[in-house]
């Protein structure tokens, strides 16, 4: 068996397989993007449902996770533009994330909060490039922008994170 479902696997079984494999990764991405746990769950739910509805048009020219992340990022973008999202508390804090024991270190907390404070276009490339490890070409395809734009955004995001950690510039909302 190779990289695709067997012909006799039902789409629902395939969806369940994807949920079990990638739900946690998508929840992490959406929570950092949307800064709200309930919104993140909604985004992940809608991501999987969209993938399920588009399952027969998935060409397999990328890994399933890559495809799901692309859907999730678009879903998060749509939600941030929606009227409902305007009522979300814009203050950025780690409170939206599930409590961990022991709590994260101060350094990790500072950097993670700085990442969450980035505007969407920088947040996307930071998560996809530095966290998920995608290459610039892949990120360009996922976000529908040029490789040059990805490179520029990474460079600027790096600069913004440096400033956040060392103090100075106001963070972006």
């Amino acid at each position, binding site marked *: *068996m190779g990289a695709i479902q067997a012909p006799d696997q039902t789409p629902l079984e395939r969806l369940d397989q994807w949920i079990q494999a990638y739900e946690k990764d998508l929840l992490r991405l959406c929570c950092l993007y949307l800064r709200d746990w309930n919104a993140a769950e909604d985004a992940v739910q809608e991501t999987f449902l969209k993938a399920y509805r588009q399952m027969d048009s998935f060409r397999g020219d990328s890994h399933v996770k890559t495809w799901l992340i692309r859907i999730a990022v678009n879903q998060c973008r749509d939600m941030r533009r929606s009227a409902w999202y305007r009522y979300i508390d814009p203050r950025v804090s780690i409170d939206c994330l599930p409590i961990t024991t022991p709590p994260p270190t101060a350094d990790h907390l500072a950097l993670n909060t700085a990442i969450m404070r980035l505007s969407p276009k920088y947040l996307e490339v930071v998560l996809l490039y530095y966290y998920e490890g995608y290459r610039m070409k892949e990120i360009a395809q996922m976000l529908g922008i040029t490789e040059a734009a990805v490179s520029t955004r990474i460079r600027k995001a790096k600069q913004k994170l440096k400033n956040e950690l060392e103090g100075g510039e106001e963070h972006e909302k």
Partner: protein
Amino acid sequence: MKNDHEIMDRVRAAVDDCTRGIEETPSLRYRILTQAKGDPPMKKKLSTVLILATVLMLLVTGAVAATLLHGDILGWLFRTDRSEAPAEIAALVETAGESRRNELSALTLNETLFDGNTLSLSLTLENPTDEPMVYRIRQAKLNGQYLIAESVMLPYGSSAGELLGGEADGQVFPKEATVYATFTAVSDYPDPLDNAMGSTAAIAAPEEGSIPSLPSRTALTATDEAEFSVLVEVFRPVDPARLTALGHEAFLDPSSPATGSGSAESRLIPFDSATVPSLLAQIGSEEYTFPIRMKTAAIPTVSAQPGTYENDLFSLELDSFTLSSVSGMLEGCITVPAPSAMKDRLPEDLTFFYAFPEDVYEQAKQDNSVALALRMGNSGGGWSNGPGPDSPILCNVSASFRSNTGSLPRGVYLVWMTGNNGTPDWDTAIYIPLK
């Protein structure tokens, strides 16, 4: 400033530390599956051909009868719980059953279906060797011209190939797989989906200062004699001991000594110039050719009259709406600008719409479910309410639909969503007659 690798390590450590409380949520999984179940079921069903093949199997032994069982192209196209495909569609299925092989690969053309617009094929790929091999199918051609795919199943295309044979983590992998593909046109240039290493060389660079011309595409037409060919590439894993299994999928571990990357995470290795030489060694390729027949068929189509349609809340200027029955499935396209308020204001968050064939509308409304709506395909544009109640931002929305009901409706209801809960607001329904 730290280099990228150092930043990557720091970001991963920080994010992982702060998000380690995130776990899979059984209730979320349940909600997703429950809502997905509300969509039209996509069970594989027996096609007329497969039923006949099963009968033959009981009476005749041999490779031909067994080959017929690998077909079921109607099962892939329809994926419904209907007991049979429309008779006019089943009649278009051509059963080939021809095989080609060499010492490294074997390919059987099971079935073809040409509906006057698209060509669908079912192929079975087999590993005749005793060791695990990775296969990729590329460059489908019709009479020497590249075929442009509408939808395919792996291992067709430029990225990951199919592992056949061998075993990993105690799981034995089958030695064959069935590939389905639907093509919509032919072109002088390879399908962008097929744009693998080196294939861009086939596209000539434009002369300096000239405007590059778009590759031409020609629609498929019926013919009694045509030649279908496809390239099968064979790769041997450099280190088969690094095969791992995850669920139903097989992976090549990039932490193989061949790569020395040190990464502990298994992931599917895409085909590109960097990874193929390190993990996979190409040991063969073969272009297999099959004769096929593409019968003549007419595509029934219905469309809406362009103009103004309205409900109690708003009016809509419909630019175009057509639905065609292609291989028994509905495909369509709609272009419509944003609605105009008829009363004091539009509903808030009027985001997107569903299209319900008229024969299922009442049931859908009663169930308050979108399961029976036409499945939205590619869509673009959109609209949103501006700062005031009567200042919507206008955009054109175009969308394609697919449905496996197979029968053309006499009309559809467009029903909009309001809010972000994903359920339709039935007060926004607008009826569009079709003929």
